[in-house]
């Protein structure tokens, strides 16, 4: 890893100012960024830690009943503290291993938007709002393909608001070596319809499976889940073919509905 200057501001305003330098990068749990820097795939000259900012920590319930999670809240804290939204707490509790969950954060996961990460599925299926230092972004507009998001350079996720569904479940088919999702499906049932988000499967990154959403909004039962989506555009690698992943999408959706209802 190349050397860099380290700063740990205690407010969002100071962090935004520190990130104004062109070569500066935000650091949250570091579970993705530090390995990336060791491989020299990233070489910022300044690293700005977001972990000293108390207003970016913690979980609360908003006036509209949504679960609000500070951008720098760890997976372990969400697993233990998001009892108002059990499906999301379980998702956080299934990420990586205990040491990864102790450091990794919701903001880091959503900013990174790894195509096999868990949180993007939870945020998209919940129709969450990604709150940054500058604006509020709807999850439907936020995810823009593998490792790509609507965030501008040096914009930071300060909070994520998750509307709490009537029923929900996340099913992750674990890639045993990395513990990421080979495929993961998050199903969330709201009063106005069902949302289904799929991670790990598509070359477009996290996405909604609209055919399943329509069928499940009419009849929320595992039997209503449509046949597997086509294999076109699905990821194919040594862990699974495109057809295998497409098949998993339907199987995991059924399991998620069965577990949620």
């Amino acid at each position, binding site marked *: *890893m*190349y*050397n*860099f*200057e*380290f700063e*740990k501001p205690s407010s969002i305003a100071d962090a935004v100012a520190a990130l104004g330098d062109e070569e500066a990068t935000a*650091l949250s749990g*570091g*579970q993705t960024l*530090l*390995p990336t*820097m*060791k491989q020299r795939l990233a070489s910022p000259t300044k*690293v700005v*830690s977001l*972990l000293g900012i108390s207003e970016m920590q913690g979980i609360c319930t908003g006036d509209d009943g949504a679960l609000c999670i500070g951008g720098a809240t760890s997976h*372990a804290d969400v697993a233990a503290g998001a009892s108002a939204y059990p499906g999301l707490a379980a998702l956080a509790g299934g990420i*990586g*291993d*205990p*040491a*990864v969950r*102790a*450091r990794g954060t919701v903001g880091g996961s959503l900013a990174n938007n790894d195509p096999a990460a868990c949180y993007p599925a939870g945020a998209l299926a919940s129709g969450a709002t990604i709150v940054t230092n500058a604006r509020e972004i709807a999850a439907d507009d936020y995810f823009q393909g593998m490792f790509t998001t609507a965030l501008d350079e040096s914009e930071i996720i300060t909070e994520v608001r998750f509307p709490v569904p009537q029923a929900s479940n996340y099913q992750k088919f674990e890639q045993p070596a990395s*513990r990421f999702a080979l495929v993961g499906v998050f199903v969330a049932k709201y009063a106005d319809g069902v949302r289904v988000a799929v991670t790990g499967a598509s070359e477009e990154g996290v996405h909604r499976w609209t055919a399943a959403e329509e069928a499940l909004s009419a009849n929320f039962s595992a039997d209503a889940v449509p046949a597997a989506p086509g294999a076109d555009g699905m990821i194919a690698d040594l862990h699974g073919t495109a057809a295998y992943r497409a098949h998993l999408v339907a199987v995991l959706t059924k399991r998620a509905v069965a577990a949620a209802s």
Partner: protein
Amino acid sequence: MSQVTMTVNGKEMSSDAEGRTLLSQFLRENLGMTGTHVGCDTSQCGACVVHVDGVAVKSCTMLAMEADGAAVSTIEGQAADDGTLNTLQQAFQDHHGLQCGFCTPGMIMSAADLLKTNPKPSEAEVRHHLEGNICRCTGYHNIVKAIMAASGQDVSSIAAE
């Protein structure tokens, strides 16, 4: 360079670190405490697990500067001053929970983290908690057995030594 100070196993220690100095490197190279092992250096294997403010983390994936002011516990702080092993360490010895010993510091620190919140874990809970700790020698069986024995459970029905 700036000075980083942390309380390591109850003693305050300081040394100069660069921005890029990892906590694992700070413990091993700056403080000379080589009990914390570095296996993969990519946050996969768990050999480097230490506790920072009571929470188990992979010290190869945390900057030393992030631990400035923190209380850190490492494998060196586990035995008594006269060298008497703690219950968990003794159980690893009694149940052959180690072979080459490379993974053992991380295994002990992860297991201690589990027993703090779950004093009598089931076998499945132990295995689940150790997902981020890789051992290339033992096949895990005796590690799991040692941890269950250390938590005061009868391990006689758990298969062969």
